[in-house]
């Protein structure tokens, strides 16, 4: 296995970078979308609330692989085409938005009503309250859940290999078929995923400690 890694480490590294780009981009795009969905779900308005529920029901109730294939193939029936990487990031973003919305909803509900009323009295607009008062506090509360979602996203990003995005899994497949050594190639890829998981967990703990030291701002 070590000789295989030594011979192909640039290819694997390439895949690792692509995995990080795809899941990182999806995590960041999913964040504002998830916040808006959470806000819509809590708004009590019929249309916005209904939309948020329907959105969550589809994106949380169906497999991400199927969602990815729908996002990838749907434009083609209108004569359009997405590059695989665009479809990959789009599908993962829309999926994580639904899961992040659930996380933010729990966080937003935990913010004392008095703070929001105070902000409104001080003349802040709805959006200012959402992005300046609610979001930062909710973010701190939901950080552990968010780290979990980031990890899920990295794992889910392995599926974009089926639409030929050259992330870790796809690279491992290429190495496996070029060398006829699938066991070693996939073990190397597995190690790469475990390394990302370990780094994410560690970074989450560090960030949590940092934020809790800062106290409530």
């Amino acid at each position, binding site marked *: 296995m070590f000789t295989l890694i030594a011979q192909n480490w640039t290819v694997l590294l390439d895949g690792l970078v692509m995995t990080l780009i795809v899941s990182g981009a999806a995590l960041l795009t999913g964040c504002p979308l998830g916040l808006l969905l959470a806000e819509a779900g809590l708004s009590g308005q019929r249309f916005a609330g209904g939309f948020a529920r329907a959105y969550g029901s589809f994106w949380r109730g*169906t497999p991400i692989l*199927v969602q990815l294939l729908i996002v990838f193939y749907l434009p083609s029936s209108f004569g359009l085409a997405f590059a695989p990487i665009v479809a990959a990031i789009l599908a993962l973003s829309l999926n994580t938005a639904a899961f992040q919305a659930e996380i933010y909803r729990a966080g937003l509900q935990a913010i004392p009503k008095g703070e929001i009323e105070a902000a409104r009295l001080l003349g802040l607009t709805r959006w200012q309250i959402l992005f300046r008062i609610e979001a930062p506090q909710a973010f701190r509360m939901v950080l552990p859940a968010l780290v979990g979602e980031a990890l899920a996203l990295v794992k889910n990003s392995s*599926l974009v290999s089926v639409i030929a995005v050259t992330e870790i*899994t796809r690279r491992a*497949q290429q190495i496996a078929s070029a060398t006829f050594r*699938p*066991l070693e190639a*996939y073990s190397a890829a597995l190690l790469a995923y475990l390394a990302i998981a370990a780094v994410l967990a560690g970074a989450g703990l560090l960030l949590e400690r940092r934020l809790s030291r800062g106290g409530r701002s």
Partner: protein
Amino acid sequence: MTLLAPEHAVLFAKAFAVTVSVTAAGLVLAVTLALPVALALRSGRMALVLPARLWVELMRGAPLVMLLFLAYYGGPSVGIVLSAPAAGVLGLGLYGAGYFAEIWRLGLDAVPKGEIEAARILGLTRDQTLFHVQIPRALRLVLPPATGQAINLLKESAVLSVITVPELTKTAGEVSNLTFSAVVPYLTAAFLYWVAVEALARSGRAAERRMASVARD
């Protein structure tokens, strides 16, 4: 776009049955394997805790598709040749066990100490206490997270399509090749997954209600 032809509807019905059976088999395997892992995690003995913890972290950090590739394509290099559905069920079971072990552990931890002491004083052996008191009590407590995890496994079973198990996602791909239209088959698959997920979620809630209405024994 054309609607689903009757011969394709038959394919989907068969594929749905495959999805349900591989998920059910994977679920049974996962829940069963998870129990000894959870007991090892709670044993307090390093020789047991360490391997159990390693398994849990490995399964939670690795994408299912990697485990399936290792079992299905990597297995033959070490003399383990499995059929695609067998590798799929094994993969789902091992993967799910990592998550169910934590659920079992939390459930067993939540059983009040007094009940265990009472059982021991009444003359039940350690094993009797475990099987007749702790596990039945934990079962009730773990029902909500276990339902959520069962839904996750059902959705993850879509990944079995990449190792050619003829389940819903794989069949959607085949039908899309036959009809030259990808959107209808994948939307059909998504709808069927959604129905199965809803059914699982509802029966989970119904079981919770029934257990709650049964007087505490």
